C-alpha cells in the first residue's frame, strides 16, 4: 500500500484541478443567489428540484462509470494492475460530484466514436479511474 498521506495529498491535488471551475461557479452562484434576494424558503427535509437534478445526474454518471468498469477488457486491465473491479466499484460510490462528472466526461470522450475503444484508451481510463478513486498514485511519477 502507498503511503496514505502522499496518496491523499495527490488525490486532493487532482480534486483541486478538476474542482476549481466548479468552486468558482458555486461561489458566483451563491453571490448571484443572495444578491437577488428572493430565495424561496423551504422546509428542511424537502428535496428541492435543483438538488434532485444533482442527485439524478450523479447517479447517471456513476452508472456510466460502473458500466465502463464492467467491460471485460477493462476488468482484465484492472486485474493486470492487481486491483479487483469490485474494490474500484465500491469506491466509485464515494466520489464527489466533480470527480464523477470528470470521469464520466473522459469516458464519453474516449468512447464517442462507438463502443470500440483502442487499447491505449482503455489503459488511460483505467489509470485515471485508479488515480481518482485513490487506489494508486501512479501519475505522481509522471
Amino acid at each position: 500500500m502507498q503511503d496514505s498521506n502522499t496518496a491523499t495529498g495527490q488525490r486532493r491535488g487532482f480534486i483541486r484541478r478538476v474542482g476549481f471551475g466548479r468552486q468558482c461557479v458555486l461561489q458566483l452562484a451563491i453571490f448571484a443567489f443572495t444578491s437577488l434576494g428572493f430565495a424561496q424558503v423551504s422546509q428542511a427535509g424537502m428535496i428541492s428540484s435543483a438538488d434532485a437534478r444533482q442527485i439524478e445526474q450523479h447517479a447517471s454518471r456513476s452508472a456510466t462509470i460502473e458500466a465502463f468498469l464492467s467491460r471485460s477488457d477493462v476488468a482484465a486491465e484492472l486485474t493486470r494492475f492487481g486491483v479487483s473491479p469490485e474494490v474500484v466499484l465500491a469506491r466509485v460510490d464515494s466520489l464527489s460530484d466533480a470527480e464523477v462528472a470528470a470521469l464520466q466526461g473522459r469516458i464519453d470522450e474516449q468512447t464517442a466514436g462507438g463502443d470500440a475503444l483502442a487499447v491505449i484508451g482503455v489503459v488511460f481510463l483505467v489509470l485515471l479511474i485508479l488515480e481518482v478513486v485513490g487506489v494508486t498514485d501512479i501519475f505522481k511519477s509522471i
Partner: protein
Amino acid sequence: MLTSGCASYPAAGFGEYVTAVAVPETPFVPQDRYQCGPAALQTVLQRSGAAVSLPWLVERVYVPGRQGSFQVEVAAAARAAGRIPYRVDGTLEAVGRELAAGRPVLVLQNLGVAWYPRWHFAVVYALDPVRGIVSLRSGTDRERHTAVDVFLRTWARADFWGIVVLRPDELPSEPDRERWFSAVADFERVAAAAAARMAWRTTARHWPEAPMPWFGLGNVAYASGDASAAESHYRRALALDPDYAMARNNLAWALADLGRIDDAVRELERALSSPKLPAALADEIRDSRRQIGARRGP
C-alpha cells in the same frame, strides 16, 4: 468537467450545414467599454420580450475588477429577468435550429489565444453557408460578418459556449431532456411561482412520461404554501415512477403539513423498503421519518 486544454479545432467551415437562416429583427445594443456581457444579454432578452435596462444588467453581470463577465453570471441574470437560459449544443446546426425558431444565440468567444485569452460575448443572428459567413451583433458593430472558420476557432477556444433564453412557455428546438430539466430546476429557484409553474407545465406536456416535471410542480406548489396541490403533483410523479423516492419524500412533507402524519410516515416507510432506493437518499429519508414522526407529539 475536465477540458482538454488547448483545443485545436479542425476548421471545417459549414461542413454539411446548408440552410441559410437569419433573425434580422435581433435588436442591437452597442456595448460600452468592457460591457460585452450585459450588451449581448440585453440583445437576446429584448428579442425574447423581457424588458430590462442595461444598468440593471451591468449591476448583475459586469464586475469591473474583472473586466468581463462569467457565463454563470450571464445565466443567473437571464433567470432574474424571467427567462430560462439553455446551453445549446456547440454546433452550427444547433445554432441554425434556434435561429430558425427566431431565437438569436448568445455566444462566448475567445478572441485571443488559449494562453492569453480575450473573452468576448456576442450574439449570432445569421448563418450564410453559401458565402461562408457567420453574422453577429458584436461590441459596437451592428453587423459583424465573420468567416465561418474564424468564428469556429474563436468559439472553440471558449469551449463552444452558447445559450438561448426562453420564456417559461417555450422549449428549445430539439432540447436535450436532462439539460432542459436542469435548466428549469435552476430557473425555479429564483423565478416567481407563476413562471416556475408554467415552465414545469410546458416541460410536462413535452415529456408526458417523465416524473421530474410533476415533482417540480409539487415543489412550486409546496413553496407557495399549497400543500394539497403539492400532494396531487407528487402523486402524479409517483404514478409515472413508483420508485421515485425523492417525490415520496416530499409527498410525506406535504401530507405532514396537512396534518396526515400517519400517511406521511407510511409513504416514507414505503420509500425505504424499495429495493431501488439510492444509497445517497436513504439517510435523507430516514431523517424525514424521524422529523415527521416527532410531530405526532407525546
